[in-house]
């Protein structure tokens, strides 16, 4: 079977999953408690993605570099919390990482 057909089928399945959820919530009423829980989807999803990324990246590099990254993430976190701006967090985090990596 050609790779193109497999890729198309996979893309279709991924789309069907999303559209299916959109349709399901459009036609079925959900309890108010569940509807309120929707508010926590964004922080929980991004937190989970962040946890997975950090947990897979850090063990794959050396201790010194891992510590440099953790330091840069913390500093970017403080800056991001103060400015509430993702671009500023990256703009401060990357040079901090390079500096900490160079020092270590």
């Amino acid at each position: 079977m050609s790779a193109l057909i497999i890729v198309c089928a996979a893309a279709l399945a991924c789309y069907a999953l999303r559209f299916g959820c959109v349709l399901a919530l459009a036609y079925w009423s959900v309890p108010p408690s569940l509807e309120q829980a929707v508010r926590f989807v964004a922080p929980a999803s991004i937190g989970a993605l962040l946890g997975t990324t950090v947990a897979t990246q850090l063990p794959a590099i050396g201790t010194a570099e891992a510590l440099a990254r953790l330091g840069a993430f913390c500093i970017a976190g403080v800056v991001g919390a103060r400015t509430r701006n993702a671009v500023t967090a990256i703009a401060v985090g990357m040079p901090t990482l390079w500096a900490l990596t160079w020092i270590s």
Partner: protein
Amino acid sequence: MAAIELIDVGAGLMVVVGTVLVVSARLALPAAALGTHWRDAPPRWRAMAAAFIVEPLYVVVAKRYEDEGTAAEKRKFYEGAAAVLWLGWVTSTAVGILVGGHVPKAFALDAMMPLSLIGLLLPMLRDRRSVVAAAVGMVAACVLAAAPNGSGVVLASVLGVVGASVWRDRR
């Protein structure tokens, strides 16, 4: 990426589709969340909009859906955010393919992913329950990082939502 790796080793259609569904299961939560806001949207619009649902887009539009405004205005906002994200996604991917191999490893560009997520996450932590959702999701994802096909992200996201809901109920 999982699909490409499987195709590369000669996996069959059902294996690839099944894996893609498991990896993409995490998108079910944002899709369901947006579905609650799109009940009155035209069916054709919902069908188009569903194609663009990814976590970063949901993060951008979720706050807009909590704010004041008509449903039509919010749909326009979604369309704009989806267009910007899609164009940025395709452009960045093309640039990455063309230039990525020439960037020295010392630049540690892979660190931009967690930094971007940190930047996206922090403005969302508006109250204690949001912090609980993010913290539970993050810790659970670290514990479940070795789960097959990225299923740990799905489970960790669900645990984060449940954790925040339980926290609310106890207060």
